[in-house]
């Protein structure tokens, strides 16, 4: 091999090597894009809900009302017969089997939606009023185009008869989409069209608040102690080793801690944001202490020396000068730690937050789910409608994480002093 050939070979190797690096970076970036695109394309349809317009005959004789008609008596009334009678009129049915199929076009809550409409508009009694009723999951998915129509009848969830009704309704322009407020206001449900993340949003909110209240002060105090006051001795070393190791312990171990100590020894209520918050704060604590210490360390010694030289005590130096200067870094570290806690699932599963909770929790000691756990729960469901719900939940979760991280970066860039 001549000198020139060898040189060429070396340059080719150089190019190849650089190419490998470029390919790796692009692969990582492409993966982020694929993931985000996949979630968004699956989830965006969950923000709308298919409604079917039905002419409801609010016939007061079917309500068996006793006494005067007012909001209270309407609230107690049974609307089932009235609802069924109006719904069955949308299409001719031969027998009870077909009638059942018609009712299955609507979400199981049709009775209450019809009732709520009348309670809001009590003057409509004994009138025939067009009311929009939430469609069932199958019709919803059909209308959103997620449902293959050309399968043989026994392999799809919508029968030919129901398809005929659907096409007929489309022709009469009775089918319509609207913004899916149920997604944000309702709790969990077995029916995808009625399931919402209201409960898990509140659950996550309480969990994060408790986590913040517990971990932020302790983390700041611990890092001030370790960075400013701790003498160099065995105890300090031991604490530092502990913190570094705890930051790398798998999250599921914290779940076992919560289960073994908080639930079984201290008998805290299961499935509640309170236990979740405590467990997650134990997990977040070392992850906040590490950036807090780094930002305290970044404050130059000259600040401390200046304060000490004019007669401030060690505490006054730290609390009046060092801590305020380190605050932006501390806060952004805390927010990033909380963002990690918000996305954490495994420990919450172990402390029982996987319970099926329909009610929206109103306090941290009510059983509830949280956003990531909701993702896990819904992803196990077979119905097609839950896939878009899961993706929408992920979109909400990612949205919160992006906002939190953005605030953290902003705090750091805007307020942190650069010492040179």
């Amino acid at each position: 091999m001549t000198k020139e050939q060898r040189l060429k070979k070396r340059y080719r190797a150089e190019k190849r090597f650089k190419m490998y690096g470029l390919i790796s970076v692009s692969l990582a970036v492409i993966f982020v894009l694929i993931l985000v695109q996949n979630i968004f394309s699956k989830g965006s349809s969950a923000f709308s809900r298919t409604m079917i317009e039905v002419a409801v005959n609010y016939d007061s004789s079917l309500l068996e009302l006793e006494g005067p008609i007012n909001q209270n008596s309407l609230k107690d009334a049974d609307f089932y017969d009235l609802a069924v009678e109006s719904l069955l009129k949308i299409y001719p049915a031969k027998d009870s089997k077909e009638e059942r199929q018609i009712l299955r076009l609507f979400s199981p809550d049709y009775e209450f939606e019809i009732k709520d409409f009348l309670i809001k508009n009590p003057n409509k009694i004994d009138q025939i009023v067009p009311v929009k009723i939430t469609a069932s999951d199958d019709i919803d998915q059909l209308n959103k185009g997620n449902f293959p129509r050309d399968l043989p009848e026994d392999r799809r969830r919508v029968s030919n008869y129901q398809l005929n009704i659907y096409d007929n309704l489309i022709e009469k322009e009775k089918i319509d989409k609207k913004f899916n407020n149920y997604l944000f206001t309702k709790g969990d449900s077995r029916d995808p069209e009625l399931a919402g993340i209201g409960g898990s949003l509140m659950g996550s909110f309480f969990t994060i608040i408790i986590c913040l209240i517990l971990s932020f002060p302790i983390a700041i105090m611990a890092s001030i102690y370790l960075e400013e006051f701790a003498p160099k001795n065995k105890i300090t070393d031991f604490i530092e080793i502990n913190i570094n190791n705890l930051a790398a312990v798998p999250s599921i171990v914290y779940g076992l801690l919560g289960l073994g100590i908080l639930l079984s020894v201290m008998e805290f209520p299961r499935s509640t944001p309170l236990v979740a918050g405590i467990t997650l704060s134990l997990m977040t604590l070392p992850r906040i202490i590490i950036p807090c210490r780094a930002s305290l360390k970044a404050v130059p010694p000259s600040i401390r020396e200046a304060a000490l030289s004019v007669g401030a005590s060690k505490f006054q130096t730290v609390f009046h000068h060092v801590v305020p200067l380190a605050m932006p870094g501390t806060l952004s570290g805390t927010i990033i730690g909380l963002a990690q806690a918000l996305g954490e699932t495994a420990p919450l599963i172990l402390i029982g937050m996987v319970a099926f909770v329909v009610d929206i929790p109103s306090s941290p000691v009510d059983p509830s789910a949280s956003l990531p756990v909701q993702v896990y729960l819904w992803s196990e469901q077979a119905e097609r409608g839950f896939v878009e719900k899961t993706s929408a939940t992920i979109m909400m979760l990612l949205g919160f994480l992006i906002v939190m991280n953005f605030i953290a970066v902003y705090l750091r860039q805007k307020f942190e002093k650069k010492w040179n």
Partner: protein
Amino acid sequence: MNSLIAGVILILCLSSYFFGRSEARKLVTQNIKLKALPAYYGYYLSLWCGLPALIIFGCWSLFEPTIIKVLILNNFPQIESKDLFYEQTLSFFNGNFSGEITNEIKAASIKYSSINIIAQNSKIVIIAAALIGSLTFAYRKIQNNNKARDDVEIILKVLLFTSSLVAILTTVGIIVSLLFESLKFFSTINIFEFIFGTSWSPQRAFVRDASAITPEELLELQDAFGSVPLFAGTAFIALIAMCVAVPIGLFSGIYLAEYASTKVRKYSKPIIEILAGIPTVVYGFFAALTVGPFFRTLGESLGLTVSSESALAAGLIMGVMIIPYISSLSDDVINSVPQSLREGSYAVGATKSETIKKVVIPAALPGIIGSILLAVSRAIGETMIVVMAAGLAANLTINPLESTTTITTQIVMILVGDQEFDSPKTQAAFALGLTLFIATLILNYIALRVVKKYREKYD
């Protein structure tokens, strides 16, 4: 009631600050030279007012239910299921009990109400006594013009120290909770059967109560908890993940550190780090619903049978999740290799890639190995991806297209939903947790040591 007491304590704290400060100012008018700023006398009084009362209040609230329970149950030694009986009593007392009301429940409930009143009253008395006592003590001190600032600072320092002890307490809590249940587990199941056994089927451990196991059942249980398939599955999925993450992560790190322009670096580094910020449940969802089925149809078209819960899908996605851990750390490590080493290499005519391969990487190797070890520990402790995308059945295989299970998956599967304590099955989860904890601890410890040694070398 409790919130009322806490509120009263807090209000007293706040007002005693102002009281202490004004008392100190009064001292000034008497021509006494204060030993600290007046505000410190306020802090001093406030701390003395709040801390003892709050500590007593906290301990009391923590232990009161347990003590009352013991006191009541002591009166009913003949009751068999004590916990159930106590729960029934409580719900009867609160008026939401639906079920057969026995005389014992009534008697216990009356007892409960009387003990409760005693407890409430004595709590108030003791807290009030603590408040008055500590306030007079602190007030006397102030009147004597103590060194309020020094005293406040000592109290604060103790507080700071206590909060840094929380880290130790957490470690102790983890070890105690894991060890306690694991020891119970190993008292029924032979520890060597657990570590070396090759069949894992905890659902056979139908026995609810560990103390009621007959010898025949015990014999059958012994080989239901062989965790070798779990260790193998965990290692296998972690290996697949590392096969994805190490080359991509390492090359990204090298490219970002050595080749990329500042502009490329500025945008691509945060994007890669997004991968570390995405919750793992999202990866699990993606692996289970998109990647798994994709591999299965791909396999079908190639004539292969691919499980929809294949180890490949879970490992691949886990690898993607780990990329940023390796790329960021190796980027840092490579950046901290002194420039003089590179320049020396260029000076003798090496190309950039030769410099990287023969000079920079060997110099940065300890740091890179440390980052890979940290990534391995992350991979074996990772839960949600494998729970959602890997299999549930223990399956000793090295075919990446089949499904395998992992330690974390089994912990979740055992503990999800309601579970009885004291069943070998539940305890097995804690034993697995202990194994996981020890394994990750060793990996982290080695990794941190290696990285630290490396840092010291060049700093």
